[in-house]
Each structure stands twice: as structure tokens, then as C-alpha cells.
């Protein structure tokens, strides 16, 4: 499998750091941003394969960012990454074009597994 290039968007630096460590084995983390608008710009610039987006982002919330990202970059896989394990948010995530929905506090390596699953067919 080709190592996917991943962009992380979350305003909590500790979590971004932990996520980068987790993904490092199987992905290339090309960048991280802490702002909803910044993620649009970074996606344009870095052209990642996948974008991990928190819902509660400043300036532009994660779901709106997701909608715009999938519209502008349909080839990019957007994974909504949230601490709110809410079915409504999950449903809305897929409605705005998300390829995956990961609950931050799932304890079984959901984020990495989701990314691997999304790119499994591209090897």
C-alpha cells in the first residue's frame, strides 16, 4: 500500500501531536492546522490524500470545511474526527462528503484503521 499523505486539522496541539505519532508508521503526515479556514488553504497547497478534520474548529467549523474540501478536491478523503459521538453529526458528516467518521475517544485505533481501509484498494 502506498503511504497516504495526511493533513491534520485540529486546534488541540496535544492531540495533533499524538495523532501524528500514531499515523507516522503507515502515513506521511504532511501538515497540521488549527483553524477551519487554514485547512482549505493547506489542502490546496499540500494536496494531501486524506484530511483529518475536527468538527469544532475556529473560524470555520469542521463540517463546513469538509463540505468545501470535498467539493473542491473530490479526490481527497476527508475524515471527520470528533469528541462528539453523536449520530446526527455522524449523519451530517457523510452528507457533506466525508469519507469517514471517527470518534476521538474510541480506543481501538479507529483513525489509523479507517485511513488504512480507505486506501486499501489503491495499493
Amino acid at each position, binding site marked *: 500500500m502506498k503511504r497516504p499523505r495526511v493533513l491534520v486539522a485540529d486546534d*488541540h496541539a*496535544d*492531540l495533533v*501531536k*499524538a*495523532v501524528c*505519532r*500514531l499515523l*507516522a*508508521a503507515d502515513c506521511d503526515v504532511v501538515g497540521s492546522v488549527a483553524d477551519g479556514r487554514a485547512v482549505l488553504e493547506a489542502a490546496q497547497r499540500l494536496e494531501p490524500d486524506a484530511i483529518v478534520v475536527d468538527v*469544532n474548529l*475556529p473560524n470555520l467549523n469542521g463540517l463546513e470545511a469538509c463540505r468545501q474540501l470535498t467539493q473542491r478536491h473530490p479526490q481527497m478523503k476527508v475524515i471527520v474526527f470528533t*469528541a*462528539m459521538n453523536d449520530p446526527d453529526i455522524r449523519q451530517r458528516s457523510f452528507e457533506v462528503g466525508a469519507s469517514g467518521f471517527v470518534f*476521538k*475517544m*474510541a*480506543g481501538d*485505533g479507529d*483513525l*489509523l484503521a479507517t485511513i488504512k481501509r480507505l486506501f486499501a484498494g489503491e495499493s
Partner: protein
Amino acid sequence: MEEKKPSGANGFRVAALTVLLLLIAAGSKAEPVARQVLVLQSIDRGNLVLDYFTTNFRVDLDQQIERPVNFVQVTVGPSGLVAAPEDAIVDFIRSAYGELRKPDLIVVLGGPASVFARRHRARLFPDVPLLFTLVDQRYLGGAPLGENEGAVVVLNDFPRTIDEIRQLLPRTKQVLMVTGSGPLGRFWRRELESQFRRFQQGPTFAWSDDLSLRDLLRRCASLPPDSAIFFLTFGTDLSGTSYADERVLGDLHAAANAPLFGVQSVYIGHGVVGGSMMSIDGVVRDSVEAAVRLLNGTSPKSITVTPRRPGTPTFDWRELQRWGIAETRLPAGSVVRYRRPSLWDEHKPTVIGSAIALVVQSALIGGLLYQRRARRQAESDSRRNLALAADASRRQTMSALTASIAHELGQPLSSMIHNAQALEAMIDANRAPSETIKEILGDIRSQSVQAAQIIERHRTMLRSHQLQKRPIDLHAVVRDSLALVAHDLRTREIETVVDLSPNPCVIDGDPVLLEQVLVNLMMNAIDAMADTPKARRRLAVMTTVRGADVELLVRDSGPGLPPHVDGTVFAPFVTTKPHGLGIGLTIARTIVDAHGGTIDAGNNADGGATFTIVLRRSKTASHVTASGAA
């Protein structure tokens, strides 16, 4: 300081002077012709018994005889004309009356004068009636009364006094008998040595007739334990010096180390403890009655007076106290004199006034104490009610922050989870350098501490809490409050402006309750801006130090306070929220009040509302003991 009485030739002059004065007095009396009474007395002035008797006898007789009475008073006993031959004394007396007149009555006082009168009766107006008085029956001895003689005698009972001393002081082992050294003293020593033989089991007796007054006083000052002193009479001491009874009793009382007893009623008050007293007043009454009858012509033979014996036991309260004698030991029917007047007797009006004042004061104090207790109870109730209401309000606020809590906790928890997963993967792939492992574990630890602090902060806010003031940093309270509402501010997309004074803002306050107030104001502000366009949503928190106060503003950019809550925004159950209880601001004001501060609300000129809290800065605290609510 010895005050001696005149004796010998001096005594003669005194007696003569007395006679002259009395005769002059007689000459000044108007008709009818005055009755003449010749008084022969045993001892010169200074003898308490004789002085008391003569003074009262003369007064009483004068009052009871219808005609005036002239007294010629001559001391014929040992301290009077003792130095003169007795015949000369008789001549003097006879010359005082001259050839033409005679006394109508001769009154003889005491034992020595009785002996004198009997010896010279033939030359002392034998046809004039003579009355012996104030003399013990035993002193008159076996000689019968003459034809023209009557007697008012007493029967002293000195052994009875010894019995009384032993009743009062059962341990008494020795009694010092004070008799003086004159003929009276010698007579009584002889007489009493015989009468005291019945006290073979004790006490023993010592006698003072062989002592000068100075030696007597010295001896009385160093008597062995369990001694008593019995004062019979004194008159003259061994050196022949004559002393007044009052002086001797006073000196004995001052010097003696043992209680002083004496049984003549006139001794009470002069330092004697007391006992069954010979009433000198009674002897005066008996004598006056007999004298009146004799002056009225009654035959002396027909005058019979029952010998007077010691009467009511009478005691001096002060002496009982001095010698520790309990009143329960006194004979039945005893009279106790000189009892110290009680506070009541002495200061009745003052005592009544003081008692009334005391009662009124006590009532006032009681009332004030009751009022203070009631006030404290009310304050305690108020504090408890504030705590209960504040608890309820705080929990309501915190329940509104549940989503915020979950989000806040979610950050460190999710970081920990992903760090743990990363570490696990590294170890599985065997590509985990120890440095990296350490770094990741360090991150996990700091994130778990962060999570624990968040939990503790919320738990503090949910816990029941009573007002506990201490010096705290108000800025720390502001930051903790903002942390609690940070999630809501972010999700509602509200711009937050924090402008804290560069000056220290230490106040005496309760961080939990003040944080409750701030969170409540901030949540109200967040709610108020729900319909405000996102671009205009703005929450400002500012502090400004103004002298001794610090001003804290919470300003929003919402629609402002509606007119219908104007002036009542802090009243209970006033709310602008569809589901609000309307107690949050009431509790907030109560908490601020409890801090001695003020809270006000008003609308901004450019829209929105501002809540202003003014608190007094701490005067005493130089540093903050702890910051924040956690």
C-alpha cells in the same frame, strides 16, 4: 501612755470638791426642802460598775422623788481617802453637814465601803437609815444588818462563769483570774479559791493579784494554748497604782492571746466575750426603789429585796468571731450583741436601689443576649440558606455546561488514547526507541493531570459549599471561569476579549462562589447573544483597580436587558429565558453582598448589557494563599 487615776491625798481633794459642788447645787434649789442623800462608795471614778451605778442611781432617784435630792458622794474605799485615817474621813463627812443638818439617807456602794460604814456606823448618823447596795451577799459576811439598815445585795456566781467558759471552749485548761491587788481582789481570791475547788478535773487557775498591770499584760500576751482570762475587777495593781477598768479591759483585749471573760453587764462592749451577766441596771432599779421607800419613811427592816443573781447570757458577736466560737455552743436563750449589721440593715435603700438596678440591668443584658443569639441564629440561617440556594443555582449552571465539560475532558482523554495507541504500535513494530517511549509516557502523564484538574474544577463547583473567605487573586477566578465556558464560547463562535488590570487584584473572597457568579454572568451573556449575528458576538471581561476597590465588568453584545426587567433584574424569579428559573442573578447578588461588594446591571450605549461588580481589595493580605477555585 499610762493614765493614772488620782489616789491618796489627791483622792481626798476630789471627794471634797465633789461635796462642795453638790452643796452649792443644793443651795440653788428652791423650796420645798431638798432631800439629802449621802453616798459612800468603795472605789473612785474609773470603776465601770460603780460609775454606771452612781450615774444612773442619782438620775433615777431624782426623777422618782417628788422633792429635789442633794447628793453628797464620798469615796471611802481604798482608792479614795485611803491615805487618810478613817476617823478623819468620818470627821470630814460630818463636817460637810454641819451641826444643824443630817442626811436623810446613807447609801453605801460596794464591799469596802460597806466595811467602812459598819466600822464607823456609830458616828455616821446612826439614826439615819442606811442602804447597802451593789455588794455581794458574801461580802457583808455573817454580821447581821443593824436596826436602821437595809440591803440590796447580789449573789455573783463565778463558778457558773467557769462552766460557761468550758461550754464555749471545751479545751480550756487554764483560767487567769484578773482581780487587781486591792482589798476587793484579795477578798475574791480567798472566796473563789474555796468555790473553785470543785474544778479538780480542771481547768487550773492563776491569779493576778501579785502582778503589776505591765506584767499582767505581758503574761496575757503569752498564755499557753487553751487559756482564758476572767476579769472580775481591777482597781489597783501590785504597785498600788489605780487604773480605770475601761483602760485595763482595753489593754487586756489588745494584748491577750486568749479570750477575755467578765460577767458584769457593763463590761459587754469592752472586749469581753460574755456570759451570764449581772445586770447593773437591775441593781440600780432595786436600789432606787428601796431608797425611795426609805426616804418616804418606810422602816429599813421592812425592806426585803431578793438577792439578784446573774441573768441572761449575753455575748459580744465580735469576740465570738475573733475567737472562732460558734453560736451553736452558746447557752439557750443567749443574747448576742454588736452583731455586724447586715448589708441589708446598713444600706437598705442602697441595697434596694442596687437590687432594682441589678434586676433591670440583668433583664437588659438578658434581652441583649437573647437578641444577639437570635441575630446569630438568623445569620447562621441566612448563611445556610445562601449556601443551599447557591448550591442549587451552581448545579443548575454546571448542568448547562455538561457539553462543555465533555468537550473539555475529551481533549486530554483523546490525546492519551492516541498516544497510547501510537506507543503500542511502535512497540509492536519493534521500532520504539526508549527516548520516544519516555516522551510519549510524559505526554500521557501531563494529559492525565490535565484531565484530573478539569474533573476537580467541576467537582468543586458541584460540591455543597459554605462561604469561606480568604485572600484570593480575582484574576485567577476570572481565568478559571473562562475555562469553564470556553467550549460554549467556541461552539457559539463568540469572540472573547479579556482585559485584566496589570495591578494585583487580591480580595478577601470565596473563589468557588465568585467563580459561580462569573460563570453565571458569562453563560447569561452567551445565551443573550444566541440571535446576534456571528460577526458581532463578543464577550468582554475586564478588571480595573479603582483605589481600594476593584471593578469587574462582564459585557456582551446581545440585545441588552429588556425594559420589563429594568430595575428588577436581580429580583428572584425574574428571567428573560423561556426555561430559566430566574434565581441565578439573585444568588449572584447575594454572594456579592456576602463579600461586601455591589453588583449592578445596565445596557451599553452601543448595544448589549454590562454587569459591573465592585469588590473591596484585601487590606491585610500581602500574598495570595491559593489561587482559583480548584
